Structure formats: C-alpha cells, structure tokens
C-alpha cells in the first residue's frame, strides 16, 4: 500500500518547514510586542528575530493552501523508482515516463519524498513550491529525509491497522450473513418431528460448517401416508446449502403432485439438472410409509442404504439409482417392504460412515451397523450414534455434514392413552401436574423410574410456572401426557422463550464454600432423571417434552450380527 501525502509548503531556510497543510490557513504574523523598560540581551535578540520574521511574512506572497491530488497506479514505474530512492528528490530527477510524475508536474509538485520502511514504499510526500518562492535548500531536504524516516513506520502502522479493521469488518459481515443463512436453512428442516400414531421419529442434523448440504424432511401426504426423505448434496458449506434449498423445494412441490417414490426422484432429477452447477449432485432416499400397516415403498438416488433392525438382526433396505442432477432420463426402481412393529430403521448420510479418526481410520459401515444392532429405540440409536461418533473423532474436526433419522414402529401400534390438561401458573401447581402425570403413567413404569419422572415433571412444570409464565396466574401451563407400550412422554408448555438456563452448572463444593448460590438444581435434576429432553415451539407456546422409556435400556443385545 502506498499513501500519497501532499502539501504545498514553505519551509524556513534551514529551519523546520511550516508549510501549510492542505486546507489550513497560513498563520498571520503577530505584531511586535511593546518593548518593556528593561530587557535582557537575550530578550532583545529574540525580539529582533520576531520583528525580522514579521517583516518577511509581510513581504512574502499571500499563502495559498492547495491540495495536490494524484492517483498513482499500482504499476506506475515511479513506485519502483522511489522504492530505492536515496531520499527527497526534485521533480526533475524523477523518471519522465511515469504517468504519475507527469500529473505531479501539472499540479506544480517540486519535491517528492519517498516514505520507505522495511524496504517497502508505503507513501509519497509531494510538496509544491515554497511559498517564499525560494528553492528547497539542502537543509530542507535533510529535514524532509529525517521526517520521512520517522513518518514511514508510523504511516505503515496506520495502514496495517486500517487493513486489519477492514478485514475484521469483512469477517464480521460474512459471519452475520452465514448466521442468517443458517437460520434460513433451519427453517427447511422439520422444527418438530410429527407424532405418527404408533411410530416415533428421531433426527439429528449437524452441518460441518455453519450451513450444510444434508437435509431431511417428513411430509404428511394427502392420502394419510407419510413421505420420509433424506438427502446429501456433494460438497459442503454455502454452495451445498444453496443446492440443498433448491432440492428441498423441488421435493416438496413434487410430493404435492405424485407420491410414488421412484416417480418423485425421476421428476426431481429432471427439474434439478438445468439448475445444478457442474460437478455437483444430490443423493436422496425417499420412503413412503402407510403407518397403520407399516407397508413401505422406497426408491434411492445414490444415498446410503438404510439399516433395518428387526428382533436383533440388522439388514439393509436395498435400492440403487443414479444421484440426482447427474443424468437426464434416469429411472428409479421402486421397492417395497413392511416395517413390522418393534422395527427400527436408520437413515443416515455419509458424514457418519466416512468420518476419520486421528489415525485416519473411517468410522465405516461396521460400526454404524453395530450401533443399529444394539439399539432398543430410535431415540437411543440417535443418542448413542452421536456419542460414539464424538468419541471416535476426538481430536479431528467433523469432515462432512451429519444427518441421522430413525423411524421406530411401536409394538403396540399407537398410543394407548393421551391425556391433556392445564394448570394456572401458581406456585405449588407443579405438584398437581406431577400427581396427575403419575396417575396416568403409574402402572407403566417401575417405581424408581416413576419417581424419577415425577421429579423431572415437577421441576419442568415449576420452570414453566416461575420462568416461562413468570408466575402470571392468568397464563396456563399446558400438559400433554402420552402413553405407549415403549414410553411415556410428557409435554409441558408455557408462554416463555425457552428453558431457564441456570447461570452455573451446580457444583456442591462451590455452593458449600459460598461461591455459588445454594439454588440452581432444577435443570440439573431434569437432565439427570428423564431419559430424553426435547424443546420446540408450538404456535406461541414453548414446549418441553420429557420421555421416559417404560423399560430400562438393555446393555447387551441379542442376535447381534455384523
């Protein structure tokens, strides 16, 4: 970077140049002070100098303050010339073939001072004629040279700071834009997984960067069936996110028209090809499930084959096809299976199977299959997969977006009981919520797990009363209890913005030492006592869903197969 510092100046011969900076007024000479009665010899000499200066100023031409405005092109030979120049130079000593020199001459520049630091030309000081119309003396040049030596590093420092500030502003802007993109992308993913009578859906989505190219969707079709879609755009980050958004919209609009998985993929492929950039494509798996019977049609466009766990055995749902966006005219074979009561299906992106550990080994299909084999519920499969992957990739950054979706068909085929009620936001009503939930769930849970659910429900309801609804008795707390053979879920809704996070993780040592308030155990208890906690918005309500499995998860599984 080279800065142009310009001024017309009038250095005092052999003294500090007091040229007027651009736009500054030339100081007027002060009248000679009245002579006091007794003065020293020094005072008399100073007085004489003052009078001389005043006379000179009066006789000098009227000061002119002008701005020299010259842009030096980055490739102007002047820059290379000045890089090694010995110091201040008369304009006539500069190369005449430089366009900048020609422009400087037009503007009356007489003296050019290169500002060089660490071998780099960081600025040019261009001076017009002295206002006294004298030429620049050797003393002036020495002074300007000395000034340049001090000014150049300071100027460079200023330039660096300006560059850094600009970079910081640019970074901040990009981060803000990415954050907005992330929020937009989150709108594409189902905010709340639907309760599908007798089925339970769990999902996990974590992009490798702020935004990602994986997606999943659950579409309730007009005929009552449900379409489950998972996909993965090649690449990651913003390009993948843009293609993901486009594919998502095409899938949604196509599902309004056709419900056959193979036909959905065929149509989306044709629509995507004109839009998708070269070298990008989308893998996608579409399942259409009839919930009451478990009858499932599915088709695959190059996506990972889903795993199916049935009675401890693990198989894959075979289906193959060309990824979307690669080849016009691609056809997608449709397959059919029945997902039986108790079955668990895992849909997943290659972000999990192709993740490497610190030794360069891939997580692979074997480990994924093992996790499926050991699963007792869809929720647990998601939780354990995320945990296992986290341990596996410790010390290594996430390489690709990760998506997991599980479909778990309940043995009972649906919720046996579903009870909802409300209580006013008054202190103590959390016990009413607890007792009513216990009455509904009582015989479905062993005593210790029922006690744990009661405390978790009581604490969640107390949070809803005290924090979510701020103790406003006119606002109710809604409670929905669902009971199936596999689990009890309790949804507690309020009008707040979210769970009240305790400021600190409760630490008994700190509390006993008086360094932490004795309170702050509510969320801790909920998290330690419920099997699963989810949060979501339902209209203007914030809902916390607690899930308690009716059976303790088994550590060992039967019939494990690799």
């Amino acid at each position, binding site marked *: 970077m080279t800065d142009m510092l310009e001024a017309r100046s009038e250095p005092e011969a052999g003294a500090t140049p007091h040229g007027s900076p651009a736009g500054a007024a030339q100081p007027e000479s002060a009248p000679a002070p009245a002579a006091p009665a007794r003065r020293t010899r020094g005072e008399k000499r100073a007085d004489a100098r003052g009078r001389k200066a005043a006379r000179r100023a009066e006789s000098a031409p009227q000061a002119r303050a002008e701005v020299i405005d010259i842009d030096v092109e980055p490739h102007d030979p002047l820059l290379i010339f000045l890089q090694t120049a010995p110091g201040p130079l008369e304009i006539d000593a500069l190369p005449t073939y430089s366009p900048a020199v020609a422009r400087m001459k037009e503007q009356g520049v007489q003296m050019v001072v290169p500002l060089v630091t660490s071998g780099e030309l960081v600025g040019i000081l261009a001076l017009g004629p002295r206002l006294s119309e004298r030429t620049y003396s050797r003393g002036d040049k020495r002074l300007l040279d000395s000034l340049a030596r001090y000014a150049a590093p300071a100027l460079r420092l200023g330039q660096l700071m300006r560059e850094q500030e600009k970079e910081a502003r640019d970074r901040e802007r990009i981060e803000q834009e990415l954050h907005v993109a992330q929020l937009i992308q989150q709108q594409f993913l189902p905010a709340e997984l639907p309760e599908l009578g007798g089925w339970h859906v769990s999902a996990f989505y974590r992009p490798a960067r702020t935004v990602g190219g994986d997606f999943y969707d659950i579409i309730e079709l007009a005929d009552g069936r449900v379409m489950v879609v998972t996909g993965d755009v090649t690449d990651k980050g913003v390009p993948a996110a843009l293609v993901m958004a486009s594919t998502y919209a095409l899938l949604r609009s196509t599902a309004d028209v056709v419900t056959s998985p193979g036909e959905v993929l065929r149509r989306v492929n044709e629509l995507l090809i004109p839009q998708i950039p070269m070298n990008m494509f989308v893998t996608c798996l579409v399942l259409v499930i009839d919930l009451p019977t478990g009858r499932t049609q599915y088709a695959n466009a190059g996506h990972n084959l889903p795993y199916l766990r049935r009675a401890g055995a693990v198989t894959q749902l075979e289906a193959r096809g060309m990824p979307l966006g690669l080849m016009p005219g691609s056809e997608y074979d449709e397959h059919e299976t029945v997902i039986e009561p108790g079955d668990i299906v895992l849909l997943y992106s290659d972000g999990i199977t192709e993740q490497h550990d610190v030794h360069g080994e891939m997580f692979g299909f074997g480990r994924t299959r093992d996790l499926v084999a050991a699963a007792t519920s869809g929720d647990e499969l998601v939780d354990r997969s995320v945990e296992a992957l986290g341990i596996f990739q410790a010390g290594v950054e996430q390489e690709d977006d990760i998506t997991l979706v599980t479909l778990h068909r309940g043995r009972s085929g649906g919720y046996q009981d579903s009870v909802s009620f409300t209580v006013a936001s008054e*202190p103590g009503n*959390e*016990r009413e919520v607890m007792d009513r939930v216990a009455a509904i769930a009582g015989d479905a849970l062993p005593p*210790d797990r029922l*006690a*744990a659910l009661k*405390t978790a429900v*009581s*604490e969640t309801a*107390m949070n809803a009363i005290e924090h979510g609804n701020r103790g406003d008795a006119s606002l109710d707390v809604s409670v929905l209890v669902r009971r199936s053979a596999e689990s009890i879920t309790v949804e507690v809704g309020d009008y707040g913005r979210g769970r009240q996070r305790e400021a600190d993780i*409760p630490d*008994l040592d700190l*509390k*006993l030492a*008086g360094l932490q*308030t*004795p*309170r*702050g*155990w*509510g969320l*801790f*208890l909920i998290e*330690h006592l419920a099997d699963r906690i989810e949060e979501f918005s339902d209209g203007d309500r914030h809902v916390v869903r607690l899930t308690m499995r009716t059976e303790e998860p088994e550590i060992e599984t039967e019939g494990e197969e690799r």
Partner: protein
Amino acid sequence: MSLEYDVTRRGTTAAIALRGRIDRDAGDHLDAAYAAAHGIDPQVVELDFSAVDYINSTGIALIVGLLARARAQKVGVRATGLTPHYQHIFEITRLSDFIEIVQPVGN
C-alpha cells in the same frame, strides 16, 4: 404447613424427624428445626426423611444451606429414611459426599 419437625436428643446426636414436603415453603421450618437441634450442642445432626414425601430442587437448595451451616459449626450431618429415589438424588447432587446416609433405626 408444608413441613413439620420434632427434635430429640440421642447421646451426642440431635435427631430431626421431618414430616411433609421440603420445597419453597419449608425454608423457615427447616431453619427452625436446625436451630433447635443446634441448641442441644450435638456433634451430629441426623435428618430423618422417613415421613418426607416430596423434595424438589428448592428443597435440595435448603438442605445445601443447612449442610453449609452445620459444616461451619463443625457439626456432622447424617440422613436417614431416604427413599431410593431421593438417595439417588443425594448421590447425583453429591450431597452424599458430605452427608452420611444411614438406614433408619430398626431396619
């Protein structure tokens, strides 16, 4: 009244038998119970939870406060009559690191 109590002396132990709930309404009663027990000048205060049917997070905070006070006064704290559930809560909160958990006399 959410919490009632009786304090009895058993050697160098002040036994506080608690009845009811330990929640936001129990603060004054628990303070009074501890003050009565401390008046006996015991080496150990024993909290009997056999007749306590509900302890919530605020109740845990009250017990933490009582424990802090007892430790400052060099008085040991013991708990008896906890259900397995509340014993579990004492364990996950680490109260059991500072409060000896014993079975009720006669068990």
